[in-house]
């Protein structure tokens, strides 16, 4: 034992304040997982306690607050009056008597030194040196019909270092007081008074003497040597006649005045801080989000498999809605495919297409279907017409319900690998609210573009065949036409007596038309462009596109949630680390004193 303990405890103050701030900031931070109301209330209470404790220790002279707690009529006020030697607290036969707590303190202690909750009470100063560092508080009852009294008591109780649990013969066993004691016993020191001892001392047959009964219960609660004082406070107020046998009021006075030395007060304070730290750790542990890194990793492969089938189904249903529009799609492919033909061939094919797809053209006026031009990479399908079906009301609803179904399935499978679905649900709901019709529209566009570029820019043998065909088809009809005209001219000029008939005049046109038709047949045969052939390829592409878009949004969700929780976990662990440091600090300065009897296990 070297330096006085007060300043040492005082060195804990900054750490306590830091911890209080940390807990407060964490509770107030918006990103955290919503805490259960009870857990949150507990943490807020602990934060108040931390603040209170820091203020309490931040002084030269530690004050020991002893709060009297008990039912109405057990004699708390009488006890305080007996201790004070005068009627400082109102005591009467009507119940409940005390409505405002009375704080009995030494006149050297300025009210500002007291906890704010105590400052609001009725303050009575004294000049008894033996009680200089002790503040005695009389409280309202905890069990009467006046519920406000209970609230007043609960407002004062957190200031207590020691609770003096006052019971009478009638009430020492009451449930309300006992429940409050059990709720508080891990947080403060407890001593017990069995008042109205005169009513207990009648001979007993069969039952236990109340003080024995109380001792037994406290031992069951884990108090190895509970401090119980049997008192008859009324005798000491009235000073009439000798006190009943076995009465211990003088012992109580002695304990308060001399037993609680400065050293013991220090130790009590230290133990109080320690209890608070234990509570804070328990509260934080309770609030700490779970570690989901492993389940999040396990979720990914399961979801990937699920997305495979899901995107297949989705693509299938989308392609089904496209089925009625196959003429438009063929039309578009045809127009695009014909852009590499030139002159006569192009004109001929254009005319044929114009006729063949008259219906498609009429349904999509204003040149909606124009074919694509330029480099494949830049091609953007105008799919407004095509996706009308997908984006119509019913289709949108269908998509919504499909996404909902997928979300449900994902939640179920996440649960299967140990990821709590309730943590995942809000995020998945947010994802389902994204612009999925737009995403799908672009997926359909992308899939069509890529199928189209496969068809119009084939690879290998098809490429050779296609470019050969295009090359020949672009030249041959003109050559045939020019050749036929030339040979006609040759006959006309060179052959004597050649009569030009209508038939021979039409010959070049008929021949050219025949050649064009032959090429048309070749094109149709060698470069077939029918929906059933496109459909399968389109389905595969759309599946892949959809898979990619949905996967990009959904697959990272579990890890994102786990990441957020891990960040919070880290924060909480940081706070727990602070608490542990504080505990070590405290243990290093622990004072030896005999206060263990005031605490249960």
């Amino acid at each position, binding site marked *: 034992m070297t330096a006085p303990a007060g300043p040492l405890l005082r060195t804990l103050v900054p750490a306590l304040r830091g911890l209080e701030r940390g807990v407060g900031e964490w509770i107030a931070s918006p990103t955290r997982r919503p805490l259960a109301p009870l857990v949150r209330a507990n943490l807020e209470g602990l934060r108040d306690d931390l603040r209170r404790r820091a203020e309490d220790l931040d002084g030269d002279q530690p004050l020991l607050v002893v709060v009297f707690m008990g039912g109405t009529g057990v004699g708390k006020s009488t006890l305080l009056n007996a201790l004070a030697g005068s009627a400082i607290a109102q005591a009467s*036969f009507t119940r*409940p008597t005390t409505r405002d707590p009375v704080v009995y303190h030494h006149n050297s202690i300025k009210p500002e030194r007291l906890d704010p909750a105590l400052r609001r009470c009725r303050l009575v100063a004294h000049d008894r040196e033996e009680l200089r560092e002790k503040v005695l508080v009389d409280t309202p009852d905890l069990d009467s019909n006046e519920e406000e009294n209970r609230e007043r008591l609960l407002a004062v109780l957190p200031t207590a270092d020691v609770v003096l649990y006052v019971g009478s013969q009638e009430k020492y066993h*009451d*449930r309300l007081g006992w429940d409050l004691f059990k709720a508080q016993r891990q947080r403060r020191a407890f001593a017990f008074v069995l008042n109205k001892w005169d009513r207990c001392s009648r001979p007993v047959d069969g039952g236990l003497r109340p003080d024995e009964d109380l001792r037994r219960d406290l031992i069951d609660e884990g108090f190895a040597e509970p401090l119980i004082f049997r008192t008859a406070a009324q005798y000491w107020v009235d000073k009439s006649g000798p006190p009943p046998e076995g009465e211990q009021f003088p012992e109580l006075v002695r304990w308060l005045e001399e037993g609680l030395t400065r050293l013991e007060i220090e130790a009590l304070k230290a133990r109080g801080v320690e209890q608070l730290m234990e509570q804070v750790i328990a509260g934080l542990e309770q609030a700490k989000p779970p570690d989901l890194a492993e389940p999040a990793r396990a979720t990914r492969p399961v979801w990937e498999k699920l997305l495979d089938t899901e995107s297949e189904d989705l693509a299938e249903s989308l392609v089904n809605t496209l089925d009625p529009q*196959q003429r438009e799609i063929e039309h578009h492919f045809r127009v695009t495919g014909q852009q590499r033909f030139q002159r006569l061939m192009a004109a001929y094919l254009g005319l044929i297409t114009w006729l063949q797809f*008259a219906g498609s053209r009429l349904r999509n006026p204003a040149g909606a279907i124009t074919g694509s031009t330029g480099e494949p990479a830049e091609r953007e399908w105008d799919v407004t017409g095509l996706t009308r079906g997908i984006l119509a009301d019913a289709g949108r609803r269908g998509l919504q319900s499909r996404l909902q179904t997928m*979300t*449900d399935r994902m939640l179920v499978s996440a*649960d299967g690998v140990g990821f709590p679905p309730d943590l995942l649900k809000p995020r998945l709901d947010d994802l389902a609210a994204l612009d999925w019709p737009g995403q799908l529209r672009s997926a359909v566009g992308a899939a069509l573009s890529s199928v189209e570029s496969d068809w119009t820019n084939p690879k290998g043998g098809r490429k050779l065949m296609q470019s050969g065909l295009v090359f020949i088809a672009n030249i041959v009809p003109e050559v045939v036409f020019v050749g036929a005209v030339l040979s006609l001219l040759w006959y006309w000029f060179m052959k004597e007596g050649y009569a030009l008939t209508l038939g021979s005049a039409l010959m070049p046109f008929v021949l050219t038309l025949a050649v064009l038709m032959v090429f048309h047949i070749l094109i149709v045969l060698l470069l077939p462009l029918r929906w059933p052939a496109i459909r399968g390829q389109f389905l595969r592409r759309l599946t892949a596109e959809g898979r990619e878009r949905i996967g990009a949004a959904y697959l990272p969700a579990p890890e994102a949630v786990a990441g957020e929780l891990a960040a919070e976990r880290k924060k909480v662990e940081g706070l727990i680390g602070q608490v542990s440091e504080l505990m070590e600090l405290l243990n290093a300065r622990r004072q030896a004193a005999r206060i263990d009897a005031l605490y249960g296990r």
Partner: protein
Amino acid sequence: MPESDRLFIATLAEDFGWLERHALKRPDRAEGAVPLRFAAALVRNAAGPTLAGEPPTPLHIAVVGGAGTGKSTVANLLVGSSIAEANPQAGYTRHPVAYRHASTPAWQPSDGVLGPLTRMAQPGPSNIDEDVYQIRPVPADAGLLDRFIVWDCPDMTTWAAAGYAPRLLEVAGLADVIVYVASDERYNDAAPTRYLKLFLDAGKPIVVVLTKMKPDQSEPLIAHFKKEVLGHLPRGRVTVLAVPFLTAEELEDPATRATRYRIPLINQFAVLGEDAGLLRRQSAGVAAKHLRQHSDALLSVARDDVAALEDWRRLVERGRSEFLDRYRREYLTGAKFHRFDEALVKLVEMLDFPGVGKFLSSALFVVRTPYRLVKGLLGNMFGTPAVASIPEQPVLEDGFQAWSDQIRATALTAEKQHELWARVAQAFESDFGKQMHEHFRTGMAAFQGSQRAEIDATARAIYEDLEQSPGTLNALRGSKFALDVAAIAGTVAMGGTPVQDLVLVPLAAGISHQLVEWLGAGYVELQKEKARTRQQELIARHIADPLASWLTQWPATGGTEFERLQLALNRIPPSLDRLVEALQP
């Protein structure tokens, strides 16, 4: 009492008893258990015997109060002997102890009265903590209270009382008069006051005995009690007396030394006991009315169970309607019902004459050749291609899977909110999904059976109607034929018979045929729409509805808590109505 009444009383009491045990399972609802136990006690101990017309004597006095208030002392004053052990250990008495004078009529409780409490075979100490009661004999007492049995009850304030206060409630239900003992320390305590309110609500006559004050404080204390405590409670039949702190001598021999407190106390019962039968009938009637009036509050312990069941019902209903929506959207709107198109062909065929008429029809058929070619060409140019129907089975299977997933996902995310959801989630771990699928499959089979028949019948009906009424058929045939002939004849008549004008004949024949086809197609389309609606009804009837009702019932089947709960909640209100009715004077 008729057997049916006996059963009815026992059932009602047991329903309340079950709810009491249900409430005790969760600490946050444990408060609600007290009035439920009292309700059960009122039903079986007061209403039951009254209904059975049991003799009103002996009357029962229940002495109740907080620990250490002097219940035993008051019981001793009542019986006029220091027989009840007054013990300073708070909460010493753990079961009701009755005191009966030798001259008081014997009391034999009928079946069910006092519920689970059984009479101890031999007198024993009153701290035996079991569901028992004992009746101790008292020497005859000069006829003062010879029609009464006095019950000394356990307290309701100590922390162990949660276990034995139900025994006090049992006796309070039985009691014709309640003596509420409150000491100078306890008279304004919240816990006993709650019981006092319970007894007042039920219409029990109450004698309040304030104890332990100094003699000169009696009057002010009575006034204070009336103002502070009774002033905030419902009005009832209450009288308030005071018994100050008694000396050891007075306690020792209450009959002779404490007469000045004893006589006023006993006088209260003399008045009450004058017409015992009336007193009992009135009490039972008031109690029954009170229970009926407050049944909502009594049953509120099951409020969140009821809310969870309601949520469950809503979830099932949502699943059902989404299942049907999905079926309509993904299958029905795209369904082509090709059977109907076949029916159309058949219908149009039928409109051609059989027999000799066949030659005419064939001739017309040949004439219509150009029409058919042109129609095919135009159809290719302008029409949209026919799309194959999506298969029905996978749509239904997927819809079912989505329904089941929805229930499971909801249960998993709500697991912590109510035990119902935890139970659903747990059931999925075992075989709930399988059972659900089993129900779906059964429905599916029933649906497929009736669907085939239904579609066939509807499609066939398109032409069968005509087949069965040859008159109409022939009329139609005749009109069609007349139309064709008129069209051709008209063309010929207008243009004479030059060869080039004969080209118009096939055109006219084609137009008239097209007209008939349009009419037929319109009719078939109408039938298809009807078939869609009927199809959805079939799905609802065979698959969705049975599955939904099985799901809705599921929590309340298999002997579960929810089944019992529903039973109690459904049974109690009408039973209380019946009870009030039966106890009408």
